[in-house]
């Protein structure tokens, strides 16, 4: 056997060289990692050992003005999944878990995919689960690797759905919110206020997150707590709301809608009411119907529930109709036309209008009618208000038109119509005071419709046409008539205090001063008083011991039944509160809404009263 020694020696040398080169590559890489980049890696290693887990702060409490708790927190059990522990067993564990939780596998998977970016941080899969589910999961822990439970503070509503539109609901932060500046320090899965006070004052209610520094191993198993910075609960808010008034307002509103329906207005299904302090704008009650239960949002609302809350057939219960919707105010606007007419000397206190039931000033081709077809006969401005005579206000509106001025619109703006009131609630509607500029831009594609017609002004004068107001704007404007000197900023939060009630801070709310001649005010107030004593609301207030001044309204809406309004303040001689009630497709303002206002005032002033069962009003 020959030895191929020469050949093998050459190749051995090549092997040696390969080995040498391979080992040099390893060594130079090690030199780079361990000597050159040491600083970077030692820092990474130190951070690695310590995980910072943020603990969520309980949201602040919300009280009414007498410190009754409207929103508090309660401990609830959430089911979480730690992605790392689940890895590789998804298809085995998730269907079982979905069945136990009554969720869809798809939903859980999406949740995990979205929020499970940190494999060691548990992702909340379902909030507020029952004790039975917890017991089951604990018993069968081996079948659910990575599945755990977590105690969280969730919102609790002692009065269930009372004041839902004021308080608003909470929910997990959305992608859109997350990308906005306001929520820059939030992370996925955290809870934020979505509407109402919860949203408007989210920055106060949220508190400051705590930080727990925990030494953990790679499985996420905590070994010891190195540092525990406790979360600071959010600020507590004291609202201007009075729970008792709120309860009465919601009840009265619901009864008014029911009554309207019984009286033949079958489409009456929605409405709202608001009670305001005429001097400082504090809101005592704010009711909107239909309503919803903010408690359903605590567990995370399902798609079908959400859909139901946003359907036409359910009348959009999430909408706060006092603030987030605008309507034609109808005759409740007439006092402002009167103030404008009197102040601009279009009409005097002694001027006699003559109402035949038909008004043809704009030409025989365009006759307008008074709601009282037989006519009111001779009426002055005070009687015009108390009997809601349309002809009186047609005249005033037409006079403004012939002037080519927009003084009527200016007066409407002066009382706050057409711009937000500044209430501390999100997405307030600003309404609309129609004028030439608006019409031009509104019909920018149709030059014929851009022309401002006499009819536009005449309709505006009786609160119809293109005028839109929010019930809150109307309440604020009536406050101005009542106090005579200012437009208050309506608001819901009275004061803010830290969680331990040590620091209390009152929120100041600006007022806008207004200047109306006292003789004008006197006339309009007289008219409003007479609405209740002898005018369109006399039936609703018969036998009422408190002096109330107000105005009914029956607004025409194309394709729908009339919208019923009642706006009033009391007591008449030194007004304290304004009440506005509106019922969509509820018919005449002097019937159900006026009764509802009477019930609310009864509670506000603590008087005993026998409210008339059924009142019929035919005015507009």
């Amino acid at each position, binding site marked *: 056997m020959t030895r191929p020694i020469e050949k093998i020696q050459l190749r051995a040398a090549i092997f040696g060289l390969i080995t040498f080169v391979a080992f040099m590559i390893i060594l130079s890489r*090690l030199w780079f990692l361990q000597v050159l980049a040491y600083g970077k890696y030692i820092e990474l290693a130190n951070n690695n050992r310590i995980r910072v887990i943020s603990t969520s702060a309980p949201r602040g409490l919300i009280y009414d003005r007498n410190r009754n708790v409207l929103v508090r927190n309660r401990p609830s059990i959430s089911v979480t999944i730690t992605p790392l522990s689940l890895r590789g067993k998804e298809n085995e564990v998730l269907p079982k878990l979905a069945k136990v939780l009554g969720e869809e596998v798809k939903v859980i998977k999406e949740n995990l995919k979205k929020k499970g970016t*940190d494999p060691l941080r548990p992702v909340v899969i379902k909030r507020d689960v029952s004790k039975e589910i917890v017991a089951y999961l604990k018993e069968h822990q081996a079948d659910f690797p990575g599945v755990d439970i977590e105690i969280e503070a969730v919102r609790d509503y002692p009065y269930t759905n009372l004041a839902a539109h004021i308080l608003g609901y909470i929910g997990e932060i959305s992608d859109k919110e997350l990308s906005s500046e306001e929520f820059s320090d939030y992370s996925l899965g955290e809870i934020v206020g979505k509407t109402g006070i919860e949203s408007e004052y989210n920055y106060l209610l949220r508190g400051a997150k705590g930080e727990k520094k925990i030494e953990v191993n790679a499985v996420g198993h905590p070994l010891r707590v190195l540092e525990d910075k406790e979360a600071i609960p959010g600020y507590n808010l004291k609202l201007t709301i009075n729970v008792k008034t709120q309860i009465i307002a919601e009840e009265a509103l619901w009864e008014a809608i029911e009554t309207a329906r019984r009286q033949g207005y079958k489409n009456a299904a929605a409405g709202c009411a608001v009670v305001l302090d005429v001097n400082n704008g504090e809101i005592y009650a704010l009711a909107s119907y239909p309503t919803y239960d903010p408690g359903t949002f605590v567990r995370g609302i399902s798609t079908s529930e959400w859909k139901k809350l946003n359907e036409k057939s359910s009348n959009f219960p999430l909408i706060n109709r006092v603030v987030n919707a605008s309507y034609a105010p109808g005759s409740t606007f007439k006092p402002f036309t009167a103030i404008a007419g009197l102040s601009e000397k279009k009409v005097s206190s002694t001027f006699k209008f003559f109402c035949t039931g038909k008004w043809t000033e704009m030409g025989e081709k365009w006759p307008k009618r008074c709601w009282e077809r037989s006519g009111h006969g001779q009426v002055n401005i005070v009687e015009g208000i108390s009997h809601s005579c349309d002809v009186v206000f047609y005249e005033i509106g037409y006079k403004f038109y012939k002037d080519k001025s927009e003084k009527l619109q200016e007066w409407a703006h002066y009382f706050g119509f057409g711009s937000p009131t500044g209430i501390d609630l999100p997405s307030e509607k600003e309404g609309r005071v129609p004028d030439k500029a608006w019409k031009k831009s509104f019909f920018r594609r149709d030059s014929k419709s851009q022309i401002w017609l006499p009819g536009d002004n005449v309709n505006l004068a009786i609160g119809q046409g293109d005028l839109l107001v929010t019930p809150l704007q109307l309440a604020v404007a009536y406050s101005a008539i009542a106090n005579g000197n200012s437009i208050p900023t309506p608001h819901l939060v009275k004061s803010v205090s830290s969680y331990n009630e040590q620091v209390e801070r009152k929120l100041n709310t600006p007022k806008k001063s207004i200047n109306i001649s006292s003789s004008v005010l006197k006339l309009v107030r007289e008219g409003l008083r007479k609405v209740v004593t002898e005018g369109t609301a006399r039936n609703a207030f018969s036998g009422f011991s408190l002096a109330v001044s107000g105005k009914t309204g029956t607004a025409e809406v194309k394709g729908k039944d009339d919208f019923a309004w009642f706006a009033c303040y009391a007591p008449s001689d030194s007004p304290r509160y304004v009440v506005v009630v509106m019922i969509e497709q509820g018919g005449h303002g002097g019937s159900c809404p006026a009764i509802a206002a009477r019930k609310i005032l009864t509670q506000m002033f603590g008087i005993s009263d026998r409210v008339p069962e059924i009142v019929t009003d035919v005015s507009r």
Partner: protein
Amino acid sequence: MDVIKIIRKVDFGLLVTVFLLLCFGVLMVYSATLSEAKEGASYLTRQLIWILLGVVVLVVAALFDYNWLKHYSFVFYLLSVILLLVVVFVGRWVLGAQRWIPIGPFQFQPSEFSKIFLILFLASYLSDKEGGLKNKDFIYIFTLMALPILLVFAQPDLGTSLVLIAILFGMIFAAGATPKQILTVFLIGLTLCFFVFHFKLLEEYQIRRFLAFLYPDLDPLGAGYSLTQAKIAVGSGGFLGKGLFRGTQTNLQFIPFHHTDFIFAVVGEELGFLGALILIGLFFALIMRGVRIATLSKNMFGSLIVVGIVFMWLFQIFVNIGMNIGLMPITGIPLPFISYGGSSMIVHLIAVGLLLSVYARRFI
């Protein structure tokens, strides 16, 4: 036979190197498993039992005349194929792969043993091709080797099948294949790899690991997790290391498989660059010792056995350390003599025994 004659037959340099490597390994396994309070001791004792068993097999292999094995080359081939087939039928699923055959309380990993059997088979076949390799020899060799390689690959054990390929290339080169022939085979191999990827023959996790190697920052907590954590461990060790038993990455279990595939990260973290240098120095000595024995062997069969073994070591060392420091994708190849694991330990000690056998018979 006097004492001097016996002593001249033993390669003490190799023995000392292996002994030091084993000591190093035992220490590291102990340190790596320290945090697993209950099992820590059992890892250590188990590893010591494997070493003891391995040393017995080593002595047997060293005393045995390796030339005798030449007659059974095809038996080894069949044996390895049968073993690998058995895995498919009775293998126990561990970590998504069928690599173990249970024998009593222990598990036995045939793919580790198949490496030695195939080295013996290849050495025997190639040693007869004195005048250089012809094309038909290539076809014969590659066709026969494709079966066990694919069986290992299908377990799926990408790492070991790569080791087999490395051994194959190393041995045909040593047996006299020209660079041109090697290159041709290599190109054919690349084409095959393309098909493997194209028809998705790789497990999803293998592709993920490969991608994680190329772009570790893409998914630092998913597939790139092990890689990133191992790199952090090694880098944070610095020049002198954090000290034995003091590796935070190790003890806090940030590194998965820290006593097997990622044991080098423990070395890097706790003993630093210096410790890694010592380990790599020992490996270098081991390989050089092997290369020397290959040149000293009295016949081609012995040389080729040694070349196969040396190539196996070199490849495993480079790929394993490489994946610990982010040079190589994660393939799950243990570090010879250091990683915890019975089959691997016994196989590498048999290999040392074969080297000693070749060395001892260099004059006869």
